[in-house]
């Protein structure tokens, strides 16, 4: 069994509260929602039910790029059990589009569809099957238009413009209207540095379209309210961002759209964009009845954005003694038909495109295209994933060309605290890149030939192909590969990325109880666990209740960008500190005259009491708060400010925090059939401070597995001729099963970042970066093949493409 290890090296900065609260930070407390989740009682967004509710259904385009000549809803409307059929003409307000950054996405298609599966009409009916059949009776006549599917077709002289008459804050600086956003990063003098290089390595890399494939499908319930507004229960990553986009389309003020988070069945970036939220509200307001929409898996593949597929061209140089000289890179991301988060993904891919290495002379260009492919936006790793796949392949190639060990070569060039990024930003907290690599390399190798049994024959379950019984070990070779990556934490480039927390402290039945109320989306990451831990630590109470997340409290920002524990955790900590000050104020007023320590000592809240830093008890919380109004505070928390990257040079302190992880992959490949079995994916990651080690390790293992998936099986396949999605199902879009997933030993470092709450480092995305290139490197090591594309399919290994 893999042993996880945890290390706090001597002499590391720890500006961490020494806490002794039971169930406080640093402990692996269990999830408060665990019991509900294992008994089936936890209410996910698809579990909502309301008396008299209707079912909503979306009709989506069957073609990728077309003019809508006509829509005939008469047959659908006439069906028994159908309450409403809505098209673009039924939208109630002047605002008909939405979008995270650029409002270019129609709520319902108007005159044109730009990608396969675009919503065109909505139906509400009394049974989901009735709704489906009614939607099928809507007749739409399309006049198909030529499709734009890649860079060549997007930038061709006569290319159709995906968004004619674009007018957004990027349209002024992009070289072509089919480019959503372009970000160059230029530092030093690449031409001069190239002269100093003894070896130059070039590579062209292709990253396939990955899907978040969360298990809980897009779903929710909209209930019309008596005040003309609507109550929406939905799974999302950011309630307030949804609200900002929903209310204008409904023609309602934001206070009349009351949102409550219902149970979220995973997210991974796929719930940052609006899916069924507005549609459900439109149907509910039109019919005057509650409307539930639940996508099936097929529709879910059209219901959210995917990870940008990318083409990356990389050129690195190095000196004979193994020092990197320069990097020149071009990263082309396919953003699909609508902008979604493409601009920010471009910023990430370019600014992190050099990886966790010291390279003084850099030219990177990243662009995102508008095409007629499915829209792409946020997914765990957000632009850094695609870059990491390319630069890590390059590191192996350079090491091979120099005759050096790939890990040693990386360690020679690894960045550390004080390194200057290609953006000019100084990395001002620990960056243990070399140490993470050292740790994964030092781990003992998993035993060879694990399929061999004491008795006769092989345990085929331990072999590539498994119970298909395709080999007993003949043709099976082992390979080992390494990778390391760098990710930013939080929203970047000057975005005001604040978070809010409300904390109430009162005495109930003689016991102090804290309530934490935020709008944080709990998507499975364990924020609810950590908030209670923080409140226990800061307020010295045992009893903490977590108020359901809703829009009655200020924004918590998004559960994404590895930011939520940093930001909303920080907000909870911040507000708790203010609550503590209030407690001490009341204490001084009531008891100050009884003990000089009230005026002079550092006072703490521990074990339900006010104590001096010397451990002397001054009063109990219960006594202080007795007869007082509950202390009820709501405060915002901000990380340090950032600035946008310069549009020409890419210079600027654009990121809040950096985070690092490394992987070692061990694979076994049946070279006869091209089947890959990953035996072990060891990982090491610096998390600054683990607030809850059980959750931390779970996050790292989950992120690692998503990286493994894209390495060997995951890809949304879009027909290059028609731009139609060919595999929108779990039958054809494969995610790793427990048989595909190896043992994942995790080594956690805790090198505090002095700028962050408790010194923590955002951790959710970093493991998704280096996992993929490590697996690719291991397969290359096993087979000797070049392999520059994800996912690696059997035909790529057997030369039968």
């Amino acid at each position, binding site marked *: *069994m*893999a042993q996880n290890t945890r290390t706090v090296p001597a002499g590391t900065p720890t500006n961490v509260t020494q806490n002794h609260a039971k169930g406080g930070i640093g402990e692996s*407390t*269990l*999830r*408060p*929602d*665990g*019991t*509900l*989740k*294992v*008994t*089936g*009682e*936890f*209410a*996910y967004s*698809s*579990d909502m*039910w309301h008396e008299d509710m209707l079912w909503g259904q979306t009709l989506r385009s069957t073609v990728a790029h077309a003019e809508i000549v006509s829509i005939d809803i008469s047959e659908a409307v006439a069906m028994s059990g159908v309450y409403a059929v809505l098209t673009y003409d039924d939208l109630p307000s002047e605002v008909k589009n939405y979008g995270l950054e650029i409002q270019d996405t129609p709520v319902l298609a108007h005159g044109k569809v730009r990608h396969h599966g675009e919503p065109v009409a909505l139906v509400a009916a009394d049974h*989901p*099957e009735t709704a489906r059949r009614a939607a099928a009776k809507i007749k739409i006549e399309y006049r198909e238009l030529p499709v734009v599917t890649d860079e060549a077709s997007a930038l061709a002289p006569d290319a159709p413009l995906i968004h004619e008459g674009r007018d957004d804050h990027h349209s002024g600086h992009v070289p072509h209207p089919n480019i959503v956003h372009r970000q160059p990063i230029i530092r030093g003098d690449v031409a001069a540095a190239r002269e100093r290089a003894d070896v130059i390595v070039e590579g062209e890399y292709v990253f396939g379209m990955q899907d*978040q494939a*969360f*298990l*809980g*499908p897009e779903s929710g319930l909209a209930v019309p309210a008596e005040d003309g507004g609507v109550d929406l229960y939905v799974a999302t990553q950011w309630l307030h961002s949804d609200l900002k986009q929903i209310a204008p389309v409904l023609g309602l003020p934001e206070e009349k759209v009351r949102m409550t988070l219902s*149970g*979220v*069945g*995973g*997210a*991974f970036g796929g719930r940052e964009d609006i899916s069924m939220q507005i549609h459900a509200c439109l149907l509910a307001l039109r019919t005057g009845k509650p409307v539930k929409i*639940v996508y*099936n*898996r097929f529709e879910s593949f059209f219901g959210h954005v995917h990870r940008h597929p990318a083409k990356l061209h990389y050129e690195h140089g190095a000196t004979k003694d193994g020092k990197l000289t320069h990097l020149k890179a071009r990263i082309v991301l396919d953003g699909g038909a609508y902008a979604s988060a493409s601009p920010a993904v471009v910023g990430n891919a370019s600014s992190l495109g050099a990886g966790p290495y010291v390279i003084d002379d850099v030219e990177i260009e990243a662009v995102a295209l508008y095409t007629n492919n499915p829209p792409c936006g946020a997914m765990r790793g957000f632009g850094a994933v695609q870059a990491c796949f390319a630069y890590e392949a390059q590191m192996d190639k350079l090491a091979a060309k120099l005759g050096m060990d790939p890990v040693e070569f990386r360690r020679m060039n690894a960045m550390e605290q004080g390194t200057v990024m290609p953006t000019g930003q100084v990395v001002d907290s620990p960056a243990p890149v070399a140490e993470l690599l050292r740790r994964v390399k030092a781990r003992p190798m998993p035993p060879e030939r694990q399929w061999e049994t004491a008795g006769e024959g092989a*345990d085929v*379950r331990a072999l590539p192909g498994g*119970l298909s019984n395709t080999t007993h070990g003949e043709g099976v070779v082992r390979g080992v590969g390494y990778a390391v990556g760098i990710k930013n934490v939080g929203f970047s480039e000057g975005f005001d990325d604040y978070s809010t927390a409300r904390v109430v402290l009162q005495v109930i039945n003689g016991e102090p109880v804290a309530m934490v109320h935020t709008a944080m989306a709990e998507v*499975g990451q364990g924020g609810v666990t950590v908030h209670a831990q923080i409140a226990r630590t800061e307020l010295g109470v045992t009893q903490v209740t977590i108020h359901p997340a809703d829009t009655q409290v200020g924004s918590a920002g998004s559960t994404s960008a590895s930011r939520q524990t940093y930001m909303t955790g920080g907000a909870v900590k911040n507000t708790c500190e203010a609550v503590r000050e209030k407690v001490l104020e009341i204490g001084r007023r009531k008891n100050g005259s009884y003990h000089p320590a009230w005026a002079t000592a550092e006072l703490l809240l521990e074990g339900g009491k006010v104590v001096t830093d010397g451990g002397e008890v001054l009063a109990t919380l219960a006594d202080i708060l007795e007869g007082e109004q509950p202390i009820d505070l709501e405060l915002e928390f901000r990380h340090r400010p950032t600035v946008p990257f310069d549009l020409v040079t890419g210079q600027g302190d654009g990121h809040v925090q950096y985070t690092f992880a490394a992987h070692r992959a061990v694979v076994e490949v049946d070279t006869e059939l091209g089947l890959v079995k990953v035996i072990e994916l060891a990982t090491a990651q610096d998390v600054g401070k683990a607030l809850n080690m059980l*959750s931390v*390790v*779970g996050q790292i*293992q*989950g*992120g*690692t*597995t*998503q990286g493994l998936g894209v390495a060997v099986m995951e890809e949304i396949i879009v027909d290059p001729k028609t731009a139609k999605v060919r595999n929108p*199902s*779990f*039958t054809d879009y494969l*995610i790793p*099963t*427990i*048989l595909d*997933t190896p*043992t*994942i030993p995790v080594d956690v470092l805790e090198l505090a970042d002095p700028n962050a709450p408790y010194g923590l480092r955002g951790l959710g995305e970093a493991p998704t970066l280096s996992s993929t290139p490590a697996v690719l490197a291991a397969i290359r090591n096993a087979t000797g093949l070049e392999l520059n594309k994800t996912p690696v399919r059997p035909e790529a290994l057997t030369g039968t493409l």
Partner: protein
Amino acid sequence: MRVNFTVNGRPQEADDVWEGESLLYVLRERMGLPGSKNACEQGECGSCTVRLDGVPVCSCLVAAGQVEGREVVTVEGLAEFAKDRAEHGAGHGGCASGACGTSLDEAKKWQARPTQDSQTGEGVELSPIQQAFIDAGAVQCGFCTPGLLIAADELLERQSDPSDQDIREALSGNLCRCTGYEKILDAVRLAAARQGEAV
């Protein structure tokens, strides 16, 4: 049509069932038992796994009419099902003999209990596999959890001390997107170990 069947030891009937409805839909939308999940509705993910006459099946692939007169156990009934099995031995077949439900003696001893709490497990009696999932950190978003619990419980009923390969094989029909499965393996190992100690 009307369908009569037993769910978690209690006789149930569903009215106005359309012939194309799945058992999953009937459980979730007609019986008020949303614990069985709807992640793919095409038999690929295992999130809707229930036991039908003892056999783990994807309830999304079972037509409602097929369960006429049969017995279904869902995650909502897992704790009671496991308790019954512990008292009456494996192969007892759940609640067929009417041993499920509440006996008169038990009813007389009934007391109001505090709301449940993951931290301590107080206030709710879970099956060993459910408790192990919580303790091992095998629950993140939790959407795959009910199906995994049914499958893992059935494995431990068959095999008290499964190897890692056995666990992987038994759970290979259940997709999880959050955990990377490692903690799920931990949970099954933990439940098996605790079961071994209890014997």
